[in-house]
């Protein structure tokens, strides 16, 4: 069923429209079994909002159990790109995607793939903490409940909250409204909520940009913890944060068509974080990471 069409290096593989026969998302590859198979292989991803091109020809590999940072100036399509990884873009009616996003070798945009199933495996944490107006317990249990979790719910809630380094702060007030927590606690609650459904990948869209420096450090420490088990993709406009936390970095930049003043994002450079920040190959990357613009 699951034909691995992605054995060769993605940059070399021509982006042919390979037929995807399988109708279901395969279970995540057992951790450690085949460490270097990419979690996501993106081929020539183009993204439109209505008639406007938002992302052009993005090709990249996301490796498992690493933190991949997406950096770039405002409006270059960082959030758009990360939302392509779990098909959240489809909630915007005019959004249109072409190209492939292979998740463990299978195109998540193939016909017959249910976005709900995709999102079940690929969790997401948003820029602004967005807990439900329910109790702390209900927030964490939400995903498990709707996905028909049969195990011990109390245990799952505790485990997820511990994982998100929030348990000690809230263990005596699980019935309290999640909206009573501070911003940083709310964001960790959102992370706990995301990992409660035991996803394979966690996407984070500027998870710390609404938080103070102390809460930010806690989130960053948490990410280091989580990458033992999860593949993490993080969008950030904070270059220091990308340099601190990530293993690999993708630099996106805005291209402008002078004639029509249309703007879209392109992937300029993608590589090891240390390489991107110390020996960038592209002039634009160098200018950006050295703070010359953006």
């Amino acid at each position, binding site marked *: 069923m699951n034909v691995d069409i992605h054995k060769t290096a993605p940059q070399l593989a021509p982006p042919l429209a390979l037929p995807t026969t399988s109708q279901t998302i395969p279970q995540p590859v057992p951790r450690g079994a085949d460490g270097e198979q990419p979690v996501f292989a993106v081929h020539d991803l183009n993204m439109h909002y209505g008639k406007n091109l938002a992302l052009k020809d993005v090709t990249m590999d996301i490796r498992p159990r690493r933190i991949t940072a997406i950096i770039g100036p405002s409006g270059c399509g960082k959030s758009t790109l990360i939302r392509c990884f*779990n098909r*959240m873009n489809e*909630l915007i*009616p005019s959004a249109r995607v072409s190209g492939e996003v292979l998740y463990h070798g299978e195109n998540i945009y193939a016909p017959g793939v249910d976005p*709900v*199933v995709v*999102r*079940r*495996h690929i*969790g*997401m944490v*948003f820029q*602004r903490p*967005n*807990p*439900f*107006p*329910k*109790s702390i317990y209900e927030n964490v249990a*939400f*995903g498990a*409940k*709707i*996905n028909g979790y049969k195990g011990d719910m109390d245990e799952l809630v505790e485990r997820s909250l511990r994982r998100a380094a929030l348990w000690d702060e809230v263990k005596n007030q699980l019935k309290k*409204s999640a*909206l*009573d927590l501070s911003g940083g606690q709310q964001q960790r609650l*959102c992370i706990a*909520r*995301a990992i409660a*459904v035991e996803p394979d990948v966690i996407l984070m869209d500027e998870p710390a940009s609404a938080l103070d420096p102390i809460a930010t450090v806690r989130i960053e420490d948490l990410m280091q913890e989580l990458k033992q088990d999860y593949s993490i993709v993080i969008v950030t406009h904070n270059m220091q944060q990308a340099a601190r936390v990530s293993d690999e970095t993708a630099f996106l930049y805005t291209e402008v068509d002078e004639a029509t003043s249309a703007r879209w994002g392109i992937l300029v450079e993608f590589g090891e974080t240390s390489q991107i920040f110390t020996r960038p190959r592209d002039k634009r990357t160098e200018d950006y990471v050295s703070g010359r613009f953006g």
Partner: protein
Amino acid sequence: MSWAEDLPPLDGGASAPDTQAGHAGGRWSGRCWAPGVSLRDCRPARRRVWRNRRNATLIVLAVVLTLIPVAMILYQITSKGIQTMDWEFLTSSQPFSLRRTGGGFLNGLIGTAIMVGLATLVSVPLGILGAVYLVEYGKGNWLAKLIRFFSDVMTGVPSIFVGLFVYTALVVQFGFGALMGAASLMIIMMPIVVRSTEEMLKLVPHELKDASYALGAAKWQTVLRVILPSAAPGITTGVMLAVARAAGETAPLLLTALGSIQLTAKLWGAPIQALPLAIFDGARNPFAAGQARAWAGALELLLIVLVFTIMARVVASRSRISR
């Protein structure tokens, strides 16, 4: 530190030369701060102060004017209704003659409870589902636009037309009865529920929906577990508005429930009384006893609507986790 040294002391205005007093008396009305002018001496332009006072007065006046009729109605109903309102009034039916004293509107109370209850049972779930369709599924398609348009039209239709419609469609064939009355009330309630629920659903922040979808929730799960609970307090308010409106409707019931002085709980086959009908009955006749009962009935109706509104508020505030 250097900038502070340049500033004159705030109270020692005399030392600053007038030419330095920048805006004062210049292009700006009122007295503005300038070096040497204390903020305490600055006043907004007299014209603006006057306008502010005038508008504030007008607003307060408008509020008072709106409250006067409400207060008068409440006073009138309470003072006149309380004279006849007693245990007997609440627990017995209308006497056979409007001239006779005693008796009460129990028949009307039961009839109103049955008809408003049935109409609520049907119109609230349907109305909420309709609103969910409008906001979450239909968005801007032609069906949604059609539903929205007709809901607006239906809200404005005089209720007697609804009564006439149910009369020709149902009553002519099946006779007067509680079911026919409930049908007409349902038609009146439905658009109110749809439109008020729609407004509430629109207010649910899309961040919450995103959070739900990102956890692998299907659309129906998101609607049931996130969107509707978040909007519940607002929806309850809209539903109460519809219930209050239905409880007070008289015109459509004249043509569907007809009214009866007998105590009955039959759903069809027999005319049934409703509180507004009983009030109408007593009020339009010249007999003191009947009129007194009408006043007490009005008070009863008022209290029922009040109690239900308060109950709904309490339930709604409980269902939402306190911030």
